């Protein structure tokens, strides 16, 4: 009986946070704590000739200065996780502190430890590093060329990953097609901009030889595993805790040099040490995205897409950290989108450049892939003079085709795409806006309507599809859920309590959900890959079912009526035939303990464990529509309306789900219109603070119209699908397509995101020329190379 599942319960997480009583990383204070600051490379590529630590070491209040020399035999380099496409390559490992060379601006070179953060910061300025500057390799397309010298000699090449996916005879399809279209799209590097930067507190207790690390992470168990391996310590002597985490968005799924350096220093000095990253460090140490894709489509005149070909180059940065390879491994498959495209040929190269390592950022290969596919779908519609919605309608996978396996070898479990698309059209008043667009006068702002239809898996690959969970009922009757996911805004505490309340017949307020501490459960994959509910929550659900069975059995035995008559409700187990006959959870636990009914070696409470593996990823679908107004004079694109309809599984808490959708949309709006990491020709970041890197403010976005339809997944026990990333996959494409749609009314072709006012203005300057020079080849002609969109800089 669903009393709580499906209800918009207010979050249990909130009250502390609202009172200012949250405990984020920098809020942790331990007795005798020291503070660390990091000296970082100011060069994109340079040889380190010398590091003079003398002045810094004499600086007031300094406890230690650490350079690579000090940890040569004590701390190992951070290795990449070996993935598909990396088999034969010698990938350089990321040193905790740079040795002979530095490979990106922001790479850690030294760490100073002082009595307070001000003294530590001052000492950084006293470190003297002599560099010999080397030419940086910044252009991923150049890096992909065989004759470009490798930035890491050990690798022998700059191509660190090579992935392929596809099926069918592409050449033939392109020959048979009525029309062939080509375009190149760039998806720039982004900063995830969690409002809380990274940070670490390391503490060593010599009496127990235990290292405790608090870190602002999404993956405490991964951090623990790597600390054990790279510091050569027994795992049981390491505890990693994620305190309240102020946003992660994928860029806190990592093992960082600072975590290792602080751990080493805490053990060396015997005092707790804190490091809190500043915003500029956050901007220059890691990014998401960074793709260039050549896209080709073979199409029939009626809009049927016969085949697509993708050649993608991803700028991975100077090293592969543990998560760097992940998004590209996703993108190679995800370009198939929600369409029934029978033939595909996809090749992805991941290349090394003198920029910081990349990794998953909300969507993790999904938004990148969608931008390539969705912008091409719109281009096809424009060139065929078809409505982009009709073109999609023609190519979307039909409801009766599920489970559907794409030509890139993804299997979509379920979905009902067309009604969701129709609902989006209705909410967006699509027809009305098309009329407004047509009636705009030559001096009025342009109107553009953009659509994107996308799918997103939840659950991940390999290990991330498995989760453990534990449910305990203490002698007091207190129910506790131990989860391996590590929520940081997703509302998992409330969501899991709602599930527990319905399964065990207790009130959700009475359920305690514990997370973010490696001492709670032996393994864990954290909150990543939209797995929180679909994998972590499913494990909790399975453990709760075990608990329900166990409690029912005990109640039946204790009270002497058949298990099928046991009803769990209001914290009681009672006899459905005789409601007077019942016991509270506390009474069941104490009764079972007293009568020796618990398994040998357990108790005094009840404990139920589950290990759950998601058999296949559930897929959610989203149809988003954006209406923009483009100022012809300034190039400014303003969003007038935004509609998002999701086709997902049943929801546990609709309020939380809607909140995830809102946030995902707006991050994508930022990606489409204003966000990009910009580097100068020497590899210096130009967007290293929030004065230059433009995330959306409240005034930049309209009120969001969100709706949802339900198609349960056959792959999860509750039928649920993940929601965290799906909206972020759709919104960059919807907004980019809307701006392109506006420009197309003047015959201007696609330009690359972010569609900043200046870029749009530049495109508008070329109206007369562009009309005759669009990015499309002649019908069924394969001559010529893809036209490059104009660069503004």
């Amino acid at each position: 009986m669903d009393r709580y599942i499906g209800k918009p319960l207010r979050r249990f997480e909130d009250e502390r946070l609202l009172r200012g009583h949250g405990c984020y990383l920098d809020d942790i204070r331990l007795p005798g704590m020291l503070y660390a600051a990091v000296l970082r490379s100011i060069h994109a590529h340079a040889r380190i000739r010398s590091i003079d630590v003398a002045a810094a070491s004499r600086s007031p209040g300094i406890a230690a200065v650490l350079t690579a020399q000090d940890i040569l035999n004590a701390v190992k380099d951070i290795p990449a996780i070996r993935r598909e496409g990396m088999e034969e390559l010698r990938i350089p490992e990321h040193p905790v502190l740079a040795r002979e060379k530095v490979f990106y601006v922001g790479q850690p070179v030294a760490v100073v430890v002082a009595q307070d953060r001000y003294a530590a910061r001052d000492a950084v300025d006293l470190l003297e590093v002599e560099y010999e500057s080397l030419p940086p390799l910044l252009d991923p397309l150049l890096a992909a060329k065989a004759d470009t010298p490798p930035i890491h000699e050990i690798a022998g090449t700059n191509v660190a990953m090579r992935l392929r996916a596809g099926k069918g005879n592409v050449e033939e399809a392109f020959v048979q097609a009525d029309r062939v279209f080509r375009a190149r799209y760039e998806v720039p590097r982004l900063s995830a901009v969690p409002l809380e930067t990274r940070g670490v507190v390391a503490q060593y207790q010599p009496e127990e030889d235990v290292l405790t690390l608090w870190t602002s992470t999404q993956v405490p168990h991964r951090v623990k595993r790597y600390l054990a391996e790279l510091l050569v310590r027994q795992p049981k002597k390491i505890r990693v805790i994620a305190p309240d985490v102020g946003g992660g968005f994928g860029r806190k799924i990592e093992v960082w040099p600072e975590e290792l350096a602080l751990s080493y220093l805490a053990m060396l000095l015997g005092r707790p040490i804190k490091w809190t990253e500043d915003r500029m460090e956050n901007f220059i140490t890691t990014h998401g995205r960074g793709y260039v894709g050549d896209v080709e489509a073979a199409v029939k005149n009626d809009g049927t897409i016969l085949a697509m070909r993708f050649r993608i180059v991803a700028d991975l940065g100077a090293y592969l950290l543990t998560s760097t390879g992940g998004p590209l491994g996703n993108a190679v498959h995800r370009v198939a989108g929600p369409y029934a495209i029978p033939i595909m040929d996809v090749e992805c190269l991941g290349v090394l450049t003198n920029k910081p390592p990349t990794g998953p950022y909300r969507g993790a290969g999904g938004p990148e892939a969608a931008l390539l596919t969705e912008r091409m779908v719109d281009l096809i519609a424009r060139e065929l003079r078809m409505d982009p919605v009709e073109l999609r309608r023609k190519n979307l996978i039909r409801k009766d085709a599920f489970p559907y396996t794409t030509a890139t070898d993804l299997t979509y479990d379920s979905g009902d795409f067309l009604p969701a698309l129709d609902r989006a059209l209705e909410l967006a008043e699509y027809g009305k806006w098309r009329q407004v667009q047509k009636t705009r006068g030559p001096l009025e702002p342009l109107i553009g309507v953009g659509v994107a239809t996308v799918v997103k898996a939840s659950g991940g690959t390999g290990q991330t599809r498995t989760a453990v969970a534990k449910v305990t009922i203490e002698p007091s009757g207190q129910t506790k859920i131990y989860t391996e996911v590590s929520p940081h805004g997703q509302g998992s505490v409330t969501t899991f309590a709602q599930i527990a309340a319905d399964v065990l017949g207790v009130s959700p307020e009475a359920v305690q959900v514990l997370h973010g501490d490696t001492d709670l459960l032996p393994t864990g994959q954290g909150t990543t890959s939209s797995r929180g509910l679909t994998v972590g929550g499913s494990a909790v659900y399975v453990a709760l079912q075990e608990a329900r069975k166990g409690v029912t059995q005990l109640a039946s035995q204790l009270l002497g009526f058949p298990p099928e008559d046991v009803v769990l409700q209001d914290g009681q187990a009672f006899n459905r035939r005789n409601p007077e006959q019942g016991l509270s959870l506390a009474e069941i636990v104490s009764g079972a303990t007293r009568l020796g009914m618990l398994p040998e070696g357990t108790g005094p409470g009840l404990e139920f464990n589950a290990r759950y593996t998601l058999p296949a990823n559930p897929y959610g679908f989203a149809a988003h529509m954006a209406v923009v107004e483009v100022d012809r004079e300034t190039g400014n694109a303003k969003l007038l309306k935004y509609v998002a309809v999701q086709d997902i599984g049943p929801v546990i808490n609709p309020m939380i789900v809607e909140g995830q959708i809102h946030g995902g949309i707006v991050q994508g709006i930022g990606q489409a219109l204003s966000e990009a990491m910009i580097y100068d020709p020497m590899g210096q970041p130009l967007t290293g603070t929030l004065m230059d890197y433009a995330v959306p403010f409240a005034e930049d976005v309209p009120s969001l119209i969100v709706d949802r339809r339900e198609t349960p997944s056959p792959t999860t026990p509750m039928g649920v699908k993940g929601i965290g990333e799906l909206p972020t996959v759709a919104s960059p494409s919807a907004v980019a397509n809307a701006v392109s749609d506006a420009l197309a009314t003047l015959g201007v072709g696609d330009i690359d995101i972010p569609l900043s006012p200046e870029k749009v203005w530049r495109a508008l300057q070329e109206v007369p020329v562009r009309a005759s020079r669009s990015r499309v080849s002649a019908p069924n002609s394969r001559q010529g190379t893809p036209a490059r969109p104009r660069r503004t800089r």
Partner: protein
Amino acid sequence: MIPVAFQYHAPTTLDEAIAILRRYLGEAKCLAGGQSLIPMMKLRLVAPSHLVDLRRIQDLAHVHEHDGGLAIGSMMTYYQVQTSPLVRQRLPVLVEATNLIADVQVRNTGTIGGAVAHADPAADVPALLLACEAQVYTVGGAKDRRIAADRLFRDAFTTALTPAEIITEIRIPALPPLTGGSYQKFAHKASHFAIVGVAALVTLDDRGVCQRVRIGVTGAGYKPTRARAAERYLEEKAPSKGNIEAAAKRALRGVEFLDDHRGSAEYREHLTHVLVARALAEAAARASGTS
């Protein structure tokens, strides 16, 4: 981000403040609202050894009528300017422009005198002061003096002020009857500073012809600049669309435009023309009472 250590001074009189500035000549900086200075100190782009906080000095935060115009104390915060009934009545365009500066928190703290002394080439207030032909009053230099706004700004973050000189007041002359004003800003999406901002004042005669036109532009070049050629072109002409467009095209000819990742020189030049036209059109419409 943590600033370099400094010594803090909180004088209560101008004389005391000047004495401190003179004692640490070149090493001391005035702290007004700090909304530009403190971020620069945190980024360690500047590192004064002494900060002289002007907040405790009596009577630098005032606004009153002077010769039919306005006298605004240098320590008036943007919020105080914005909410002053006198400013609202005499120079509503200043209220509008001030409301576009950064955000609530910055407007609560940042001061009009601080903005002038800091001379960020993208700050909003200087454009207004140029268009209004404001006079900036100072003490602490070789002699107490007043400096016309268009002689004050020399370069990016550089003014005609000497190291111990303190701005006390900004005077804005009375506007002639039938004058309308407008401030048009195209803001950078991250910093909310102007990529280009244009302030215009247009005075019409009783035939509806532009009698007097004043235009101040910020953000475009290395310092806020009067668009004199555009002003001259429109004077003695009707504020027709054609005349305004032609005037706007003459704005900042020959000026070296800023050229960076926030906006290329070409784009800033274009925006200058667009915003000058918009500002002139709105100012003229307001002057004629049609808006």
